[in-house]
């Protein structure tokens, strides 16, 4: 028999499987171990992306020449150097808006999970995954355009730094999309995911958005 006076609150739920968002956690910090683990992981990710952004900043103006080709005709148009010369700001801006919108849909998904509204949870998670996939598609299009214009990963040190940074970010978005779709699949099971599980996926997703806020400004907009 469970002693209700001393049992950790998180292991006891009502018969309907609802999860109180104010649920107390029997940890020293008051934060569940799962959520704290995600925050620690995101901290380590900050260092990873900090290193990649710093590397790009150091090398962005340090080109070895690569041959810039006209995308339509394939003819050489010169030996310009910087990868930043190839940026298409209006296109990348649209991608940024899409990723930002996905953060908004994600918070609505978390809210729906806390209300145990699984119909809306699936809707918002699906919308978030679709927006994330659109962003990744845009990034693949951008990479393809750059490669056709002559800037490959090994063209020079600035292109290597650029592809490493944005490629790592794109991979993170892709993993996020997989996490979102997995969560949608879990909602169809008899034991639905806890609201906190959705919140933890949301933390990861917002982190990916936050990193793009930095990349978009530092890499694309600051000249």
């Amino acid at each position, binding site marked *: 028999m469970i002693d209700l*006076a001393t049992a950790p609150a998180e292991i006891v739920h009502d018969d309907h499987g609802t999860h109180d968002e104010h649920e107390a956690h029997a940890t020293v910090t008051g934060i569940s171990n799962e959520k704290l683990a995600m925050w620690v992981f995101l901290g380590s990710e900050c260092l990873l992306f900090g290193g990649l952004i710093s590397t790009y900043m150091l090398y962005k103006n340090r080109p*070895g020449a690569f041959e810039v080709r006209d995308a339509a005709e394939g003819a050489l148009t010169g030996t310009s150097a910087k990868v930043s*010369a190839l940026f298409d700001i209006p296109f990348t801006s649209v991608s940024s808006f899409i990723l930002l919108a996905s953060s908004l849909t994600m*918070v609505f998904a978390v809210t729906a999970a806390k209300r145990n509204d699984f119909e809306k949870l699936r809707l918002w998670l699906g919308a978030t995954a679709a927006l994330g996939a659109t962003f990744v598609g845009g990034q693949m299009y951008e990479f393809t355009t750059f490669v056709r214009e002559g800037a490959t990963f090994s063209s020079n040190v600035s292109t290597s730094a650029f592809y490493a940074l944005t490629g790592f970010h794109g991979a993170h978005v892709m993993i996020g999309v997989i996490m979102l779709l997995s969560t949608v699949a879990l909602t169809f099971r008899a034991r639905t995911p806890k609201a906190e599980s959705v*919140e933890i996926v949301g933390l990861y997703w917002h982190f990916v958005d936050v990193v793009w806020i930095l990349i978009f400004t530092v890499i694309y*907009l600051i000249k």
Partner: protein
Amino acid sequence: MAVVTDHSTSEPRDVTHGDDHDHPTDQTFWKVGIFLAALTAIEVSTYWWSPDRDNLDHPNLGIDSRITAASLIIMMTIKFITVAMYFMHLKYESKILRRVFFSGLILAVAVYLATLSSFVFWNNSGTDEFQYAPRAKVIPPPPTEPPPITKPGHSG
């Protein structure tokens, strides 16, 4: 079975949750989303504030690029904090989490700035010595042997 709340803990309440117990409504999230979208639109507009050295035909308002860069960094910081506080729920989370997150972040940024400084990123960013690969050393041609000295009157 009833939901059990943990009354046995002796921790102060603000350790488990932040001081703001009002959880955000959907309306709050919409407002934050619109604010972030507006800020992003202003950020994008800065592309046409200053001249672009890579593209001399780029239309611009002629604003000093340092002002543009400073504005972008400020807007980026505001967006970062807004997403972290509202969307990542830090505003409504435990105070200890907020402190750990922001103190760690500030420390990390300081470390990266120090590292960039050690690479002389700020001072020499426009010079050939730092920005470009070292030039190949110009090796002078080997000295040619002087022609033999011939004494006058010894010819033939």
